[in-house]
């Protein structure tokens, strides 16, 4: 009976209902949109760095990651096979990485020269699709693939010669010149400004480290398998000789920056919720004020106060539910639109974002969980605010209320 009363009350004053529900709807929409965008930016950043280069798990000689010195290279043969056998690992990408000075004419620039097995590498990082010019590398050739930022800085074009100078394995003299076979573009400005790829055998000769690699990046079937694979590898490999690291250990800066940004956003969310809460509270306040006369009459003719309070509460809860559901429904196309058409930031803002290693593109993440969570938060907020009319009704003096 109380429920029917509440239901009828909702439809009695449609405009009031519409305003209240709309304020809840927009609250859910804004909160979901913000959360999706923020997560999207970080997901994009991480996939730029992790999927397109680092991989979710890497194996090195113990202590390599701390020093990143080529002297910590290890022989490829013995360790490779058993890693590829582990469940969940779909590919093993051997790499020989170190830094070098790249020169062209009078210009020089520090670059990271990475020896790769071109086909295997492509299987995980999709390097071939990042080519903007030229062709992909093949295993047995002496040519380089450079990131577009490197080519730009050095003023090099396809087919030009790139000169590399470095210190190789155990301090040997490393110098070589290679034709540029392809130019690739990376989303992450960090990668785009320093990557130079060589086929693995050419890199091993360049660094004077035949048959050696500095790291094995693992391609996993599923991101969820990370802890399991890391666990198995740590048990199988000799951990005094090798280190197994997941991407969060490889890139602690990135993880921390994300945490910091998320923590900073808690404050923004708090303010957002405060504004939302006051908006919803305003409509509830108006409603209870407007209906004081009605409440007075109902109590006078014998409706118990708790019955009245309960029916009003149900009314607000129903409004909250409707608003939250509508909010989810409306958020989906909006967020989806920004997922497909990411926000691109240009001008000075873009270059400052690039300095922080961000691609200045903000695609939204489309995740049902975000909508559900935000709708839930707003709903709980509404449910708490709905306690106001209850207090109001408890203290209501029917006579005064009816005199208005």
């Amino acid at each position, binding site marked *: 009976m109380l429920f029917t009363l509440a239901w009828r009350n909702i439809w009695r004053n449609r405009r009031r209902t519409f305003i209240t529900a709309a304020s809840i709807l927009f609250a859910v929409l804004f909160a979901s949109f913000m959360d999706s965008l923020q997560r999207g930016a970080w997901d994009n950043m991480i996939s730029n760095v992790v999927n397109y280069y680092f991989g979710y798990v890497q194996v090195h000689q113990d202590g390599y990651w701390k020093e990143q010195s080529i002297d910590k290279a290890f022989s490829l043969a013995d360790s490779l096979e058993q890693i590829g056998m582990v469940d969940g690992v779909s590919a093993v990408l051997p790499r020989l990485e170190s830094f070098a000075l790249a*020169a062209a004419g009078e210009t020089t620039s520090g670059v990271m020269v990475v020896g790769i097995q071109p086909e295997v590498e492509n299987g995980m990082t999709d390097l071939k699709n990042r080519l903007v010019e030229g062709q992909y590398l093949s295993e047995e050739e002496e040519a380089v693939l450079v990131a577009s930022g490197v080519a730009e800085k050095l003023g090099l074009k396809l087919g030009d010669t790139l*000169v*590399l*100078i470095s*210190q190789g394995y*155990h*301090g*040997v*003299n490393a*110098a*070589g*010149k290679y034709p540029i076979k392809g130019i690739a573009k990376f989303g992450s400005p960090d990668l785009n400004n320093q990557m130079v790829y060589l086929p693995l055998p050419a890199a091993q*000769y360049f660094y*004077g480290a035949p048959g050696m690699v500095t790291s094995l990046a693992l391609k996993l079937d599923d991101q969820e398998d990370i802890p399991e694979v890391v666990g198995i590898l740590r048990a199988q490999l000799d951990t005094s000789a090798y280190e197994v690291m997941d991407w969060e250990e490889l890139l602690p800066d990135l993880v921390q920056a994300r945490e910091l940004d998320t923590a900073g956003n808690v404050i923004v969310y708090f303010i957002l919720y405060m504004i939302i809460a006051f908006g919803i509270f305003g409509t509830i306040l108006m409603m209870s004020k407007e209906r004081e006369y009605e409440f007075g009459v109902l109590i006078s003719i014998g409706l118990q106060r708790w019955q009245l309070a309960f029916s009003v509460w149900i009314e607000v809860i129903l409004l909250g539910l409707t608003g939250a559901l509508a909010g989810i429904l409306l958020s989906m196309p909006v967020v989806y639109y920004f997922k497909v058409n990411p926000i691109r930031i240009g001008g000075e803002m873009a270059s400052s974002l690039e300095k922080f290693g961000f691609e200045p593109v903000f695609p939204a993440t489309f995740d049902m969980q975000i909508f559900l969570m935000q709708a839930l938060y707003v709903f709980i907020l509404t449910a708490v605010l709905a306690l106001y009319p209850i207090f109001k009704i408890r203290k209501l003096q029917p006579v005064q209320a009816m005199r208005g």
Partner: protein
Amino acid sequence: MPLLAGILTAQNDPTAKEIIQKSDQKMRGETNIATIKMSIIRPSWQREMILKSWAKGTDYSLILVTSPARDKGTAFLKREKEIWNWQPTIDRTIKMPPSMMMQSWMGSDFTNDDLVRESSIVTDYEHKLMGMDTTENLACYKIKLIPKPDAPVVWGEIVTWISKEEYLQLKSEFYDEDGYLVQTIFGKQVKEMGSRLIPSVLEVVPADEEGHKTRLEYLSLEFDEPINPSFFSTQNMKRVK
């Protein structure tokens, strides 16, 4: 009698400076041409290269790598205070910037700066005879070298052991300004090379890195062959063999 005694001591006991002078002349000569096997020794690995070197006085020298094959033809030219590096694999001559001077030379315990250092142990230091000592079973003068205030020297002091008979530098300890030992150079396996008796092996041992050592072994050595100063040019560096 006191006069005679004075003459006798002068003959028997040369001053510290004279000892250093004789020893320096002996090792250097007017010019020298050498073939050297350089071994870089580390706790877990070891690498060897064969070098050919030409030197004239303290101003000019040229070092050519002849082995291993991947580095063959790489050359270093020193002209006064500059070092040039010829990299045949990239057809380039590189002038070493000052920022690279303290870096390791070819992965050894020498720095690039060691190649250009112009200081002379004769003229840039005050010499003080500390007494007699024995190294490698030879009686030695132990001499302390303290750099003169305006000398272009990185060391705080050097203590060197020079054999009494042949004026051979058998051991030198290099200290920094704070008095800590930085490296020790040993002269070993004394034999006749280029008609002079000299230590044929030099070992550089850095003080703070256990198991690290760079060993230079003279495979051949000739002194005082005339070399034209134009030999030490960046052009010649590319074609010298």
